């Protein structure tokens, strides 16, 4: 996983992502979610694991959805696969209007939980279910970064 502090390291599409991020709807961190967004600002993607029953979950919650114990944060490896996706070709809301077509996907972490994201750094036509992807993050402001995913290196 790499940390792009707003920089363009993956070509034009990732550059668009970085440029538009500040104008996108952004999370309002709360007591439960703040560590997740803070970690992303440092270049990490977190998920939760329950110390009592081992259940892994995303999105983050105050309680384990399997046994109601208090979950713990775990760093994700940053490796995953595309579980499903779509190419958004029409969205009248700014700034997405000018970004279309772009990929919205649900990525499955290799640890199990799934999260929504954009897959950037490749043409939308190249995205497919099962595609290996890697996480990267972009820092928006102090304590708030946003994870994105891009095709995993093939080596």
């Amino acid at each position, binding site marked *: 996983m790499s940390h792009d502090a707003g920089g363009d390291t993956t070509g034009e599409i990732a550059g668009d992502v970085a440029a538009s*991020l500040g*104008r*996108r*709807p*952004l*999370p*309002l*961190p*709360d007591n439960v*979610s703040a560590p997740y967004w803070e970690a992303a600002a440092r270049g990490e993607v977190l998920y939760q694991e329950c110390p009592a029953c081992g259940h892994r979950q*995303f*999105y983050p919650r105050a309680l384990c959805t399997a046994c109601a114990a208090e979950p713990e944060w775990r760093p994700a490896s940053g490796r995953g696969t595309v*579980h*499903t*996706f*779509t*190419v*958004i*070709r*029409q*969205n*009248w*809301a*700014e700034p*997405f209007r000018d*970004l279309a077509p*772009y990929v*919205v*996907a*649900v990525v499955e972490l290799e640890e199990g939980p*799934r*999260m*929504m*994201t*954009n897959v950037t750094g490749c043409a*939308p036509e190249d995205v497919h*279910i099962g595609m290996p992807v890697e996480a990267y993050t972009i820092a928006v402001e102090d304590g708030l970064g*946003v994870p994105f995913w891009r095709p995993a290196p093939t080596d």
Partner: protein
Amino acid sequence: MAAIRDGQCDTVLMTYGSDLLSRQGRTLGSKGHFGRSSRVPGPAQYEAPYGNVLIGAYAMAAQRHMHEYGTTPEQLAEIAVAVREHAALNPDALYRDPITVDDVVSSRMIADPLHKLDCCVISDGGGAVIMTTAERARDLRQPPAFVLGTGGAQTHWQISEMPDFTATGAAAAGAEAFRQARVTPADIDTVQLYDSFTITVLLLLEDLGLCPKGEGGRFVASGALRLGGKLPLNTDGGGLSCTHPGMRGIFLLIEAVRQLRGQAGPAQVPGASLALACGSGGWLSCIGTTILGRDAP
């Protein structure tokens, strides 16, 4: 229904109306979920930055269904074609000109793999349903339809949480409704399913047990959903061609009752005695199913 059964009241009016088209125009639900530059609280915060739209949520279910079961865009398109054929029989339907599978798959792509004609219309509209006791209904001007069974289920709220992108709560909601009604999917004469998008119908058909899981594409391509077919769908022209003012549940019940009363005109399913209505809310999140009968249970 429970309130009437328990004697808390005799008669209930359920009504719905919306001026969605006049108010918002035809945006295909793609104005985005959130206000401009807003800060989004709650579970939606994990989706907010990524620019998904309503159609994108359904598109991700369709994409996964195609991946797992080999469902094709042409099979999904057949649902829109069948419903348009029924809309042609309804003078109140918004769109009545016939369309072909080719028209659907060559219409503009909105969110892969869903085309413009895979999406419901935006309209104004409204409706009302009156529920009362069987005893009170005996001397009403209109013949009643009887509620034989109902079921509801929710599997998730945010689309990224959907446990299985190819399965909905209709599996649980349908099983409960069929159990109460003491009938089986094979007994149903016509279905009124929430056709927000073609994929919604496909998933509901499978999950309600009206065809085997994964077989929805082949089932709809057989022509089963057309009048004269095994299981005529949305005989009023549905959300895909008749009306969709933002929510559609009431219209499903109204058309089911019309069929059971024999008042569906040229769209009448001959001898219809059992109808199923099934609505889907959120992002395939929560499902309500009602089985209605012509004859008293």
